[in-house]
């Protein structure tokens, strides 16, 4: 009788399959908890004490947010409240958001919540992309707050007749069909002034999230480097 090969032995493959399935399960469960810890939102206390979180607390809307190339990580990272010596967030420099830079954690959370619900009810993702989810029919909104078109030298403030980034964005969101920005014009979605405020807060907060440099090459878009 021919010698039986291990390769054609059932038990060898059963044990191999059991090992791989078991090990992969443990790894994936561990990965789930590791990820949820990393993507959980920070708090105002984190910002006050200068702790960099991947997703900063809601009061980040009180701070100036920039997007700077980080040599060590080889991609752009959000820099909140000015840059420290290590090239990361200093959490010092504030920036007024709708006239205030002292939004409390509760107020900011409420605005972000309104913005998130608004973005869902108006189905922004049907055309735009948020944090990698959505469509590419309209511009990627992940870092839209940092788009120089909305800045002091961009065209959007003049077009909407507003003098700040947040007011220009809020005005545009309420009457998008009045402002021809793109051949694929944004339709009027019936966004109210309050909802627009929430949506802009939502966008500002989203731009402060460390997405490991996603969307790739955002900083190489003309003028976007260093928030200019």
């Amino acid at each position: 009788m021919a010698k039986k090969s291990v390769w054609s032995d059932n038990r060898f493959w059963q044990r191999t399959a059991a090992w791989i399935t078991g090990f992969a399960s443990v790894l994936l469960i561990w990965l789930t908890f590791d990820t949820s810890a990393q993507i959980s939102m920070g708090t105002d206390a984190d910002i006050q004490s200068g702790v960099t979180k991947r997703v900063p607390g809601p009061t980040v809307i009180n701070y100036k947010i920039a997007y700077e190339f980080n040599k060590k990580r080889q991609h752009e990272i959000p820099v909140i409240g000015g840059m420290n010596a290590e090239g990361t967030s200093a959490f010092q420099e504030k920036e007024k958001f709708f006239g205030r830079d002292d939004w409390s954690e509760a107020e900011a959370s409420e605005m972000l919540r309104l913005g998130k619900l608004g973005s869902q009810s108006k189905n922004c993702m049907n055309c735009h992309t948020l944090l990698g989810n959505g469509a590419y029919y309209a511009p990627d909104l992940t870092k839209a707050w940092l788009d120089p078109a909305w800045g002091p030298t961009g065209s959007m403030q003049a077009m909407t007749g507003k003098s700040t980034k947040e007011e220009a964005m809020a005005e545009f969101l309420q009457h998008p069909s009045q402002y021809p920005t793109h051949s694929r014009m944004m339709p009027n979605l019936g966004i109210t002034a309050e909802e627009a405020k929430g949506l802009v807060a939502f966008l500002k907060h989203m731009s402060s999230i460390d997405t490991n440099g996603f969307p790739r090459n955002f900083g190489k878009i003309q003028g976007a480097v260093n928030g200019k």
Partner: protein
Amino acid sequence: MNAMFEPFVDVVPSFFGTLAQGPLTLTIFLHTVIILPMFWIYKQEKARLEQEGN
């Protein structure tokens, strides 16, 4: 300069961060934990088959 081993650059040090530091890090890890135990299982099964006289 491109060193063979780069310093860890992720936001927060994490085990999974170490697996994503380059194109080979995950591959080497998975081969280590999947293929090496397979050699061990192979040897055990071979010994068992020989013992059973097949």
